[in-house]
Each structure stands twice: as structure tokens, then as C-alpha cells.
């Protein structure tokens, strides 16, 4: 080990420890502390100058009260459950919307595909916030959609979509669509076309060939896409706070409000720790899936 | 390699006064517990074309990488010109390596690839250009100087890699299966080209190959390796004619191996009894072998003659039935089964047209060979 190598490893390592790992430990620690009307608004504050004794009293003052509080208050339960529900439902809707697009792209001829690909990626480079915002003008009571529908005489009172969970679903599906389309397209694109021909040769109709061959073979892409939508949707903050209403409960929004509005840092930290625990299972499943894919490709 | 008789024989390994360029002194290399190179000692002399031959995984690449400086010996010393290489990093070694994958820099042109090493040497700027041109001429790529590696053919790429490693005129050039990716015809052309270049530049070549024919064609000496050990180091003709073990005899070319017991019959002459009802094999050997020693008798198929009648003038003759004939164009191989079930291969040059050939399946024939045609091997 020479000096250069140590420097090369230590620089990014130290950076991540200082700005990723340590902050987490702090969150965890504060989640075990108490709310206090002071600055910072929690106690105990660890006092290094008090030495080992100070550390012991510090430890003895930590407890799981915040977690007890979270499990006692059904606001949090509901927020977690409704986050899971909203993330799951929007993932399914995204899948249903994305699959035909990915399928159509894979069937398009070679000249078109790079352009189609670019059209799917382009929204990803534009601001997320703006893409969410663009739906406010469409979904609100005097919005574009209601005006069209009213103008056409389809409805006579404006639909109240804005500030409901429906608007949140629309927002998630819209913003995360590329994450679903791309992995599915990738698996469909490299599929061997003669498989479909073989299936048809063996007596399948086009539709049953799709169900029996295409769909099962695109499963890895579907799974990857679902995780790529579900995981970030679970902790989403911007969409529920712009498109959702006061009754839309999502855990990211709850955390934000605990922190910025109630200034209850210990509870906000406890909410964060539980959100993380919720995320660990899908993240591990996702990693497994990716690992399997990599091995299958080798 | 037939050499004109007038030329002085190049054999510094027989000259006790000659100083080797490269010395491996009991070099061992372990990867964890696995022993990749096992106590290897070799001397390689300046201007040699030294070939490493051996089955896959026997440690040829590892040996080279230690010379180039990418691996460190676990034990032992490697000397270049008498100096220990242990603490010399790869970039300070007077060796250059031609990689099996060529490792041409894809972002640089052919010209820049060849100049790459020169720019990092003490060579004055003004001399780099002419040197690159000279190298390009040598490998006949002058027209392709501005191309990128992906714009030339596989054979041309291989020659760029060669030119690049030659450009710095290293004391030692390491070639790791340089011709592995080429088709047979191109490979043979390049082999001669390599020998030509070696003669012109006087560089010492160490070449790794899987292809024994290649080793025989190009090398001044061949080292046969197995499981990290050196089994035999010798000139190609001696490796072929006088293998020191069954392993080497079997590894290089086709061979019949017969197990038996030797008993001395005279000055350097032995009789090998090897099967009930078969005559003893008369063979010669310089080694002293005690009576009753178990030995292997190895004989190349092309040293065995095949005839309808028993030849009178040959020391050994056995009778058998033709089991199989393999027609290979210039030669045919006959598999002959003897009365005791032993299978002997004999090779005959096809100097006549097919229709005129005399032997066919199931014919009874005589196989014969002289007493110096084969060798007696102890292991």
C-alpha cells in the first residue's frame, strides 16, 4: 500500500462516512431523544467535555418514547399504510401505462427507435418540480381538463381531482413513467423475435403468444421497473404536497411537516428511521433481482 | 529450423562462459495457497527466441507477468543482466510486453500507439518520428499510421502491438500468445515475420504459446511447463527427438508409449520385454539402466515403417492387423492392432496417389523400426 493508494481510497471514503453515515447515526440518536423548547430543540445534547460519565448519563436518557408515541398515534400508522398503498397502486398503474409504450417502442423499426428512446428520456432531464407543477394547471377546478370537459358538455360541474389522491396517482405515474418504460423496453428489445414465430408456428395466436412468451420473458424488466417506481414513490414529498390535499397522507410529507411546521426533531427523526426500515425490504429484493439479472447475463 | 551449415551454431546455453540475460533463481509464485509457479530456475540468453509451452493454467502468463513486473515472486529472484528486478516497477524495466489481447489504446491512432512508449523514454523528440516510421515499415503498416485500432484488421492490430512493444528496443520482448487470434495461414506468415524481426533487431524474445508447432518453428529453445514446474528446457529438435519424460514426449507431437522392463544387452543397448508373446524391443540409451527396471519406450509414429513382408534388416519388427487408417493429405496414419491387443500408430508419407496404395483395413502388416528410432524414458 503506497501513499497514493491510501489517499485515493480515503478521500471518497471519508467523505461518505462524514456526510452519509454519521448523519444517519445522528438521526438515529435524535430519534431516541426528547423534544425540548430550546436550541437545538431536543435533549439530551451530548456533551463531549463531560467525558465517560457524561456519555453514560447521555445514554441513560435515551429511550424509545418517540417510537411509542408513533405507534400510539394512528396518524402515523395511517400515513405509513397510505404511503404503501399509494406507492403500490401507482406502481401498478404505471406498469399498465408503460408496458404498451415499451412494447410499441420495441416493435418500431430501427430508424425510429433512437428517437423514441430520446423522447422517453427527455422528460427525465427536465425539472421534476416543473413536471409536477404542469398538472396543477390541468387538474384544478378551473383547469384545462375541466374546461375541456365542460366545454364539450360531458360534465356540468367541474370534477374535483386536484388535491385528492387521484391527483397524486396521476402525478406519480406521470413523473416516474420513464423509469418503468426503459427497463421493460430493454428486455423486450433484446428478445429474440424468432421465439414469437416459433410460438405461432406451434399453434399460438398472436395474443396467446404474447401471454405465453413475450410477457414471461419481459418479467425481469417489469420487476426492475416496479422497484424503480415503488421505492422512490414511497418516500415522495413533492407530489403529495403539490397535488395532494390535506387528507393525502404520505410519510415524506408527514416528516417534512413534523420538522418544519411542528419543529419536533425527535419525532421527525423517528419517522425517518421507520421509513428507512420500511424501505429496506424492497431495496434488498431489488438488489437480489439485479444480482440475478447480472448473473443471467454472464 | 534448418540452418545453413556455414553459420556458426548459436548455442550460448552450452557455453559456460556466456552470461545469461535473464535468470530465474528458484522462483515460486503463490496466489493465496495456490502455487502457480513452483521453484523455477532458468537462464535465458541474449538474442534467444525462447518459447514457453504448456497446458492451459500451467503458469506461463504468470511467469511473464513477473518478468514484466505485474506480479511479484513469492520466493526467489529474477535477475536481468545480473541485477535483481524485485524493486523495479514495470515502467522502469527494460522489458516490453506484447499482450495477448494486444491492449492497443483505442483512443490513439496506430502512429500514436507506437510512439506512446518512446514519448516516455529519454529519446529526443526529433528522433521519435523517424523511429515510429521505421517501426511502421518493419511491420509493413506505413499506410495505416493515421487509423484508429478499430479501423484495421485483426492481423494488422497484432502487428501494431508488436511494433509498439518493439519500438523502445527493449532488451527483452515478452510475447503472450501473440498469434492466438490469427488463422493458420496468417499465423504461419507472422511466425516467419517474427523470426525475421528477431534476426534484424537482435532483441531477445520470450514467447508464450499453446501451439507446439509454433514453438517448434520459431524457438531457439523450448521450455515445457506443467503445474508451475519446468519439465524440460531444450532445443526444439532435442525436445522432439529426446524428450526427458513421458509427459514431454506425449505433449509434443504424436507418440507411441510402450511400458516394459529393460535389461542391458551390451554397450548402451537394452532389450525391453513388454508383453507376452511379443519379441523384446531392442533400443539404445546413453543412461545406465539396471536389469529389470520398469521403463517407458517412446517412439514417434513416423519412425515406424509399415510393410507387407517382414523386413530383414530392421532391429525390431512386429506383426498386426490394420484397425484404422486416417488420411491427412500429405501423410496417412495407420492404427495397427497387435496380437496381444496393443495399438501402435505408424505414419507414412503419401508419396503415391490414393488408388495405388497397398494397404487397406484388416490387412495383416509388419511394423518395423531401428534400435535408435525410439527413446527409453524413466518417468
Amino acid at each position, binding site marked *: 500500500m503506497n501513499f497514493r493508494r491510501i489517499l485515493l481510497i480515503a478521500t*471518497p471514503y471519508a467523505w461518505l462516512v462524514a*456526510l452519509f453515515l454519521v*448523519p444517519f447515526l445522528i438521526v438515529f440518536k435524535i430519534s431516541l431523544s426528547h423534544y425540548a423548547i430550546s436550541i437545538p430543540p431536543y435533549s439530551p445534547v451530548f456533551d463531549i467535555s463531560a467525558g465517560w460519565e457524561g456519555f453514560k448519563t447521555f445514554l441513560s436518557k435515551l429511550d424509545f418514547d418517540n417510537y411509542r408515541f408513533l405507534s400510539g398515534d394512528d396518524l402515523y400508522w395511517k400515513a405509513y399504510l397510505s404511503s404503501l398503498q399509494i406507492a403500490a397502486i401507482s406502481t401498478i398503474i404505471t406498469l399498465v401505462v408503460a408496458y404498451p409504450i415499451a412494447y410499441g417502442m420495441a416493435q418500431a423499426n430501427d430508424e425510429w427507435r433512437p428517437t423514441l428512446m430520446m*423522447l422517453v428520456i427527455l422528460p427525465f432531464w427536465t425539472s421534476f418540480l*416543473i413536471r409536477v407543477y404542469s398538472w396543477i*394547471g390541468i387538474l384544478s377546478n378551473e383547469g384545462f381538463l375541466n374546461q375541456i370537459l365542460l366545454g364539450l358538455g360531458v360534465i356540468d360541474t367541474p370534477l374535483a381531482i386536484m388535491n385528492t389522491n387521484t391527483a397524486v396517482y396521476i402525478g406519480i405515474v406521470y413523473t416516474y413513467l420513464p423509469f418503468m418504460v426503459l427497463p421493460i423496453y430493454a428486455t423486450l428489445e433484446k428478445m429474440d423475435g424468432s421465439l414469437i414465430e416459433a410460438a405461432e408456428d406451434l399453434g399460438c395466436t398472436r395474443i396467446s403468444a404474447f401471454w405465453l412468451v413475450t410477457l414471461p420473458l419481459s418479467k425481469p424488466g417489469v420487476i426492475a421497473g416496479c422497484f424503480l417506481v415503488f421505492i422512490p414513490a414511497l418516500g415522495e414529498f413533492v407530489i403529495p404536497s403539490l397535488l395532494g390535499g390535506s387528507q393525502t397522507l404520505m410519510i415524506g410529507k408527514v416528516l417534512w411537516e413534523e420538522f418544519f411546521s411542528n419543529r419536533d426533531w425527535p419525532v421527525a427523526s423517528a419517522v425517518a428511521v421507520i421509513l428507512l426500515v420500511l424501505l429496506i425490504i424492497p431495496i434488498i429484493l431489488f438488489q437480489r433481482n439485479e444480482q440475478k439479472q447480472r448473473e443471467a447475463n454472464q | 529450423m534448418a540452418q545453413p551449415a556455414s553459420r556458426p551454431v548459436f548455442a550460448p546455453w552450452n557455453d559456460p562462459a556466456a552470461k545469461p540475460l535473464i535468470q530465474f533463481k528458484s522462483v515460486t509464485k503463490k496466489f493465496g495457497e495456490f502455487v502457480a509457479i513452483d521453484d523455477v530456475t532458468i537462464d535465458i540468453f541474449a538474442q534467444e527466441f525462447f518459447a514457453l509451452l504448456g497446458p492451459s493454467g500451467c503458469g506461463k502468463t504468470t511467469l511473464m507477468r513477473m518478468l514484466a513486473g505485474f506480479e511479484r515472486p513469492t520466493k526467489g529472484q529474477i535477475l536481468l543482466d545480473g541485477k535483481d528486478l524485485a524493486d523495479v516497477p514495470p515502467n522502469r524495466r527494460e522489458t516490453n510486453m506484447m*499482450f495477448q489481447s494486444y491492449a492497443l489504446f483505442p483512443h490513439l491512432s496506430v502512429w500514436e500507439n507506437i510512439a506512446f512508449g518512446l514519448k516516455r523514454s529519454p529519446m529526443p523528440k526529433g528522433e521519435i518520428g523517424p523511429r515510429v516510421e521505421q517501426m511502421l515499415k518493419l511491420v509493413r503498416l506505413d499506410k495505416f499510421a493515421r487509423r*484508429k485500432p478499430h479501423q484495421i484488421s485483426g492481423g494488422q492490430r497484432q502487428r501494431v502491438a508488436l511494433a509498439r512493444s518493439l519500438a523502445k528496443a527493449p532488451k527483452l520482448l515478452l510475447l503472450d500468445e501473440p498469434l492466438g487470434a490469427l488463422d493458420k495461414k496468417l499465423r504461419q506468415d507472422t511466425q516467419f515475420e517474427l523470426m525475421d524481426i528477431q534476426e534484424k533487431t537482435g532483441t531477445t524474445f520470450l514467447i508464450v504459446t499453446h501451439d507446439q508447432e509454433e514453438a517448434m518453428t520459431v524457438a531457439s529453445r523450448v521450455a515445457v511447463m506443467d503445474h508451475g514446474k519446468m519439465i524440460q528446457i531444450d532445443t526444439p529438435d532435442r525436445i522432439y527427438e529426446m524428450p526427458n519424460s513421458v509427459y514431454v514426449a506425449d505433449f509434443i507431437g504424436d507418440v507411441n508409449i510402450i511400458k516394459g522392463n529393460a535389461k542391458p544387452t551390451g554397450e548402451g543397448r537394452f532389450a525391453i520385454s513388454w508383453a507376452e508373446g511379443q519379441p523384446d524391443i531392442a533400443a539404445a540409451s546413453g543412461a545406465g539402466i539396471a536389469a529389470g527396471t520398469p521403463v517407458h519406450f517412446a517412439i514417434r509414429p513416423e519412425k515406424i515403417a509399415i510393410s507387407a513382408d517382414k523386413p530383414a534388416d530392421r532391429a525390431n519388427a512386429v506383426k498386426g492387423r490394420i484397425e484404422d487408417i486416417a488420411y491427412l493429405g500429405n501423410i496417412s496414419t495407420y492404427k495397427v492392432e497387435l496380437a496381444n491387443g496393443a495399438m501402435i500408430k505408424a505414419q507414412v508419407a503419401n508419396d503415391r496417389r490414393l488408388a495405388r496404395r497397398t494397404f487397406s483395413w484388416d490387412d495383416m502388416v509388419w511394423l518395423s523400426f531401428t534400435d535408435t528410432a525410439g527413446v527409453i524414458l524413466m518417468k
Partner: protein
Amino acid sequence: MNRRFSWFNATSLTLGFAFLYLPMLILITYSFNESKLVTVWAGFSTKWYGELIHNEAFLDAAVVTLKVAVMSSTFATLLGTMAAYVLIRGGRFYGRTLFSGMIYAPLVMPDVITGLSLLLLFISIGLDRGIGTIVLAHTTFSMCYVSVVVSSRLATFDQSLEEAALDLGCTPFDAFRSVTLPIIAPAVISGWLLAFTLSLDDLVIASFAAGPSATTLPMKIFSSVRLGVSPEINALSTIMISIVTVGVITASLISKRSIVKQRAEEQKAVRN
């Protein structure tokens, strides 16, 4: 995939892309609306662009955002490339698993958690919040994206190229500079662009890390659109969308042209 482009495919593509692009087209259209009432069309006008340009607060926020994006993406590219090199070429070292875990975890971490944890860190070490802390925060999560992009390039990179460079007399650093870097440069550049975009785009982490003294453009946009649609924001969005569109199209044309050029050269090479 056999290409049998049917009416079904055409319809699904049309509807799909309409869904992706109509909201933005509507937004762009309304940015040229004369009326303050966003939903009523009152004639073409560019007056909102005029007002936007004279809105000091937005301009300041834009400057802050650009500063943060340039700095954080540059640091992130440096650190991320180092991290990728360590992951792929670093061999074994103590705590390697933790290291690769810390590279991948931020990619799936919800912004609220990342933001909260960084804020708590800044407060507990008494760091004054402002542009500096946003840069620190953005560098941290962007470097992970950069490192994923660069390491996937490095993983397919033949190590014997580096060995060849050493063999020809390069020092390890020289080998990295003159062989490795030029070859992975496209990945490093895309990593930088990705980090830049992520930084421009980020609302949540910046809100936690910023404190009262610095406001980024997304924060400004967020606080104005919470109250509903505003024509100035429409104008701003239009400008941002146009910049990105022009950028992406140019980039793809350039890469397409270089592919075409490369093919032509290859063909020329074959013919000779």
C-alpha cells in the same frame, strides 16, 4: 424482437407520448397568455417573460442554483470517479463492503431522509447553513450517481490497457491520465451532466440544507406554486424546458453524427 408494427402499437405510442408531452405543451402555451387568470386564454403576450426577467428574487435564486450546480457537480465528478476507481480497481481493503454500501445506498434513499440527516449533522457541528452546505449535500448524493455511471464503464474496461501503459514506461498516475481517463471520459462527462441536472432539480435536500440565507430556484418555484398556478412560473418553466430540450437534442445529434462518422471511417478502412 420481430418488428411487426401494428395499429395497436401506433396507438399506444401516440397516447403514451401525448400523455408525456401534453402537460408540458399546455404549460408552454399558457406562458404566452395575456391574462393573469391562467386558465382563460386572453391573447398572445410575452409580458410574463418581461416580468420574470425583472424579478430580482428569481434571478438571485437562479444564480445561487447555478453556482451550487456547477460546484457540486464538479466535486461530485472528482469524488465519484475516485470512488468508482476504488470500487473497480482498488482491490481489497478494510471496510470495502461498507464503502460499496455507502455508494449504493444514497441512490435509493428518500430525499427527505437524506435532507433531514444532513441538516441534523450541520446543526450538531455548528456549520452555518448557506450555499456551502447545499454544495456539500448535493456533492454527497451526486457523487454516488457519478460513481455508478463511471464504474459501469470501468468494469468493461480491459485492465491490460493500463498494464500496457505501465509496461511502456508510464507511472501509475501517467497511465491513468493518458490512457484510462481519455477512455472513460464520455462516462465522466455524462456523470457530470447527471450530477448537474440532479443538483438543478433538487428541492427537498436543498430545503433542508439551505437555511434562511440561501434560496435555490426549485425552492423559490415550490414556494410560489404551493399557492397555485402562476404565469411567471409558466414562463420560467418554458425557459427551462427549452434549454434542456435544446441541450438533449444537440447532444444526441452530436453523438449520432460521431457514430455515423465512425461507421464511415470503418467502412473506408475495410475498403482499403
